[in-house]
């Protein structure tokens, strides 16, 4: 089995460099054959694309998509400086 460390590095690079994702802020953790993706994105389509790219970069491993959607809320309270 490939060293998890290098799998994580490869998936992370793929997410950053693949034109479908270009996501730099996704955390990739590999434990044995399990790959965990964590972070935040702004729409469901992007969340799915990240999972697809990760699967391609880690064939045969089990990818857990734990990425959350950032719900952009209306502006809240203001801060007085």
């Amino acid at each position, binding site marked *: 089995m490939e060293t998890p460390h290098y799998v994580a590095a490869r998936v992370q690079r793929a997410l950053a460099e693949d034109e479908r994702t*270009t996501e730099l802020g996704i955390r990739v953790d590999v434990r044995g054959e399990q790959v965990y993706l964590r972070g935040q994105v702004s729409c469901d389509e992007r969340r799915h694309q990240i999972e697809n790219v990760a699967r391609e970069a880690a064939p045969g491993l089990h990818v857990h998509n734990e990425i959350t959607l950032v719900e*952009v809320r*209306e*502006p809240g309270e203001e801060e007085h400086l």
Partner: protein
Amino acid sequence: MRELRIAAVADIHLGEDLRGHYRKKIEGIERRADVLLVGGDLTRHGTIAEGRVVAEELSGLPIPVVAVLGNHDYHSDHNQEIVDVLRDAGITVLDDEGAVVPVDGVRLGVAGGKGFGGGFAGKCASEFGEPETKAFVRHTKDIAERWRRALKELDADHKIVLSHYSPVKDTLMGEPPEIYPFLGSYMLAEAADAEGADLFIHGHAHAGTEKGVTPGGIRVRNVALPVIKHAYTVYCLNGDDC
């Protein structure tokens, strides 16, 4: 002098798939703020098509919009074209320079640009060794020098630095420390502290935190969308009535 209400956001990362979404969230912004500052990473891939989406979403607002680019906006080597598209749409884009935005007789000065990395005092890269390392550090140094000059030349009642990269570690809390040198540089803070400013706005650190302060005491706010989780945040700069 009246109070100034500064709306700020960064890392909106727009593309065709989000067309119209962000605009909906900022309708009515003129009732909450006097100016909108956008701290870079306007697009995902830095394509001209994405730049046009950004221009559509941010143009025609009743308040002035000032923006800088982020690293994503450089990815396709069309950064200059994106700047042109935004400027054609009436958006003020700062590329290591300053601009004065008049707001009801108050002159708001904004200086800045994309910024760059290098790390923070004591744990930073230095201009030594391979040409690649020197070029990396010199890029930030040159930027900081241009910002210092731009701040000095600003004739304004209030001054704000608008950047993509962070000037301090405070607002990176939550990011892995190993990547801090790619998230910002103390040289950006040093430039601001040398000339003085009321506020330092940045983005880029999606997993960071909102609030920090420079060594010289300038308030720093990381307004990356995933950090503030709102369409924008409003900061009020004290007027006499506040």
